[in-house]
């Protein structure tokens, strides 16, 4: 019996389609049911949770495998296997700043993948950045030698830069419309994100007979 951690939200439908093609279909319509554990035949069941909680459930073995964005895999720093890139849920983790701001202009000169230690130096203090991804952000700025004051928010991250709480934000960008409507521009790209299959390390070894055919069908 395999337990699959499935995220609520935009990744759920495409993920379910892939599992259905691999022969695993939930016995109830996930869009209408309020149950959090949904059986899927004799060989599997789905547990439904927030995408940022998927890595933890899988790392601790409560779920054998799960679906979540690469951003969540890396931000959680969970000790997981990530053998399959589903190729859906594509977006980018970006640094964005108000259009016309010094930070936006400077970053644009350096190109999207780069940032110099002097980024935001005319502020005379550390660059203030709001994000839901403190770990990924700290690492990215750290590797580039940019001193940064990270503000950890849980939603509406764009607002921080618009209202002046911070100089810039690090957040997921799918189409760029939210940024545009709020007067922000992309200054750098931190990570290309897509939906990944994550697998518990011990389950991968101990349930290999059940897992391998599924991994092949999903990949």
């Amino acid at each position, binding site marked *: 019996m395999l337990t699959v951690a499935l995220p609520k939200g935009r990744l759920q439908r495409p993920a379910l389609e892939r599992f259905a093609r691999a022969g695993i279909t939930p016995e109830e319509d996930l869009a209408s049911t309020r149950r959090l554990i949904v059986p899927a035949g004799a060989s599997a069941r789905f547990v439904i949770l927030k995408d940022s909680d998927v890595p933890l459930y899988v790392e601790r073995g409560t779920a054998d495998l799960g679906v979540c964005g690469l951003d969540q895999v890396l931000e959680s720093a969970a000790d997981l*296997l990530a053998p399959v890139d589903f190729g859906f849920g594509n977006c980018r983790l970006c640094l964005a700043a108000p259009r016309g701001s010094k930070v936006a202009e400077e970053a644009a000169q350096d190109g999207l993948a780069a940032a110099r230690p002097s980024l935001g130096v005319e502020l005379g203090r550390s660059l203030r950045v709001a994000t839901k991804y403190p770990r990924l952000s700290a690492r990215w700025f750290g590797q580039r030698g940019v001193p940064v004051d990270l503000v950890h928010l849980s939603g509406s991250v764009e607002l921080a830069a618009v209202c002046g709480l911070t100089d810039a934000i690090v957040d997921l960008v799918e189409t760029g419309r939210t940024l545009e409507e709020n007067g922000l521009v992309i200054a750098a790209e931190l990570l290309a994100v897509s939906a990944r299959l994550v697998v518990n390390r011990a389950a991968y070894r*101990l349930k*290999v007979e059940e897992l391998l055919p599924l991994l092949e069908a999903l990949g």
Partner: protein
Amino acid sequence: MPADGQQPAAPLPGTQDLLFEAARRLRRCEAALCRVFEAAHYAEVIPPAIESADVFGPEAFRALDRGGRLIALRADFTAQVARIAATRLSGMSPLRLYYRGSVVRRIAPDSGPVYERLQAGCELVGAAGPEADAEILSLASAAMSALGLRSARISLGTMGYFAALVQAAGASERLARALSDAVDRKDLPMLRSLCEREVADGPARKAILMLAQPPRPQTQAAQLLAQAESLAPSEEARAALQRIGATLRLARGDLEIDLGEVRGLGYYTGIVFNLYAPGSPRPVGGGGRYDSLLGRFGDPRPAVGFSLDLDALAPLLET
């Protein structure tokens, strides 16, 4: 007693009190393991809980003593046993030593909170051959059986092979780390993109891409090794594969071979393995060959060993 505004006293995060049945179970687990180790003619050593900090890596919890000397809480038994073997027991080969006790480490080197784990393990010092590797693997497997964990599995790989591939590919230290990380996470998409961007096409690249394959049962090991050998880009790579083949022919236990098993302590040079048991979401133990560690203490001798995670194992025991 909590004073005004103070929190009640509790164990630090990463540590715990074991009470009653949990304590009894842990001691029972430890005693069963010691019986197995003693029966295999391993002798116990009890190293101190604090050491000079240079015995351990950056994961150790460090402090300054009164003389300004950097000391550390024990972060790793193997390094301590290597120090003992290389100094007071220098020249006595082979040595069969076991230990039990707790290690204290930082979650990430040089940062994060510390945590404590209870361990027991064995080291075979002064034996270089595949027989020694097989003895350690068989002993680890016997330890699992003694605990009643009959479905436990050992996943066996070799550091030597990965090191040889990285060298043949001419990879920088940064690229080697990135490749190792992708192999360790079975992240074939990432491994492919790294190889396409940074490794020249050739046998080394083909061999590296094979590392993210799933593990194979022992019965298919010969086939996997032959396939890998046909791609081996260097003499070192071929030697590492032949060595693991020889070890597999000698070892007993439920083994599977995984050339992507590259996770282990930084000083491993030959075989490396992890143990998995149903009910534990993380490995319950692991080990490997470390032929250059004793040299750090002035007595270059080969050695191989393993340690078991008692905190992970004890809850799996039948009551």
